């Protein structure tokens, strides 16, 4: 007890010196005088830390049920092959431009590496027979774009429904292929968007698709099926076209901001 009693003053003196030292260091770092700081030793509180201008919300991992689809521009002419191998049969050749002189794009539906570790991408082809797919080297394509939209065309009901993130956004009446000029059924995608052209027949906006007419194969631009406005809204809904999907001008104008290039199309 006597020893402890003798030691107490020394211990408290050391503590006081330590606290004083910390105050000096703190003031040196902050650039303020010791008197402006507060310490536990003097009964005052240390200054609160700065409240950050923002904090980050809870991070969320990606779920497996996202309604996204990928597309990619064609960077250089490339062979699309039947399998992810440079020795596989060529099924089509990809051009960098569309007949409308926009950048050619492909819908991306698969990924694989070959035996040498090279990356291959499976893509939908804008070629006959409709529904064709092929494998191209990743290096032939540019960066991926993504869309969360999908267009479903019902040829029986003559209706087209645009979905976003799996939920219906709008449904419109369509004009489809007349007897003898069938609109092809299957899985396709939006290739490009045309505006400010002068053609009342196609309305104010036209979208190119990867679908091709099986009848109009000698059509000057290749017989591609478009989705566009019309100068004959009185014919819709109906089977009135050479394979294209016609939509009333007001409907296509309303749909256009949501119908991005790369959007998958199901025609059934």
């Amino acid at each position, binding site marked *: 007890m006597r020893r402890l009693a003798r030691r107490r003053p020394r211990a408290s003196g050391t503590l006081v010196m330590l606290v004083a030292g910390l105050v000096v260091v703190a003031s040196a770092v902050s650039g303020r005088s010791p008197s402006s700081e507060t310490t536990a030793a003097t009964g005052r509180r240390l200054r609160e830390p700065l409240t950050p201008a923002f904090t980050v919300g809870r991070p969320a991992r990606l779920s497996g049920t996202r309604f996204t689809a990928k597309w990619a521009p064609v960077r250089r002419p490339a062979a699309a092959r039947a399998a992810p191998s440079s020795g596989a049969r060529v099924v089509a050749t990809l051009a960098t431009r569309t007949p409308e002189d926009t950048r050619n794009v492909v819908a991306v539906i698969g990924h694989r590496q070959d035996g040498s570790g090279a990356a291959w991408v499976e893509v939908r082809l804008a070629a006959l027979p409709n529904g064709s797919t092929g494998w191209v080297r990743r290096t032939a394509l540019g960066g*991926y774009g993504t869309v969360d939209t999908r267009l479903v065309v019902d040829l029986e009901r003559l209706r087209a429904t645009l979905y976003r993130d799996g939920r219906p956004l709008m449904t419109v009446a369509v004009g489809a292929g007349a007897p003898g000029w069938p609109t092809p059924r299957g899985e396709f995608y939006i290739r490009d968007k045309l505006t400010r*052209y002068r053609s009342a027949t196609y309305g104010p906006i036209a979208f190119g698709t990867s679908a091709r007419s099986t009848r109009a194969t000698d059509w000057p631009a290749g017989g591609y099926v478009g989705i566009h406005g019309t100068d004959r809204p009185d014919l819709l809904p109906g089977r009135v076209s050479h394979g294209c999907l016609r939509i009333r001008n007001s409907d296509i104008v309303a749909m256009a901001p949501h119908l991005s290039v790369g959007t998958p199309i199901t025609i059934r």
Partner: protein
Amino acid sequence: MSELILEDVDRDEALTEAIDGLCGSTRASFLRGAALGGAAMLTALSTPSEATAAITDVDILNFGLRFERLQATFYTQAHETGTIAKMAAAKKDWAETLGAHERAHVRIIKSVLGSKANARPFFNFGDATETDAAFTKTAVAMEDLTVALLTGVTPRVKNRKLTAALFGLLTVEARHAAWARHIIGSTPAPTAFDRSRTLDSVQGTIARTRFIVTKPRTSGTTAPGFTG
């Protein structure tokens, strides 16, 4: 092993242009050949220049948004291509966690900037998101790059509360970088001070990869030639 330099990953010089805007063209040119996360880059980014006088907090936030978007898109694409799904559990957890963090960073910075947020760039990661090996190398390089850049720009923010928030991002990015190094079997904290940090442990480079590119022109005014 070769060091990864800015020129390797910035084929279109989009990143160099961003640094040019913040640090001046002379420094940006110098940084082009500097090792990412290396001493030269850290020192150059940390030293004030005359060009920084007109830089606003909004500029710096947009600068940060650009890099966070780069990272977020990189991890998201690796997820969507199935590359992450094929990884072993621990590595998959790492990649998915970092992706979630980067997307959260994008959301908050974009929210803070509001209408002043710059448009989202178009990215092309080439093979880097398609294979495990390329993805891992790129991830390590990008995390170190982000740490270096945030280290450089955070002290220049005028709003102290914003500085405090950016430090919160910086420390998380530093953890990402350390985690990435751990994933590739390298020392997470190789030095006691970041100025002398190098990327010796990063194997290979992402040479010839274009990360930020011009968005392809997919619209036109040609009269349609569709079947009608």
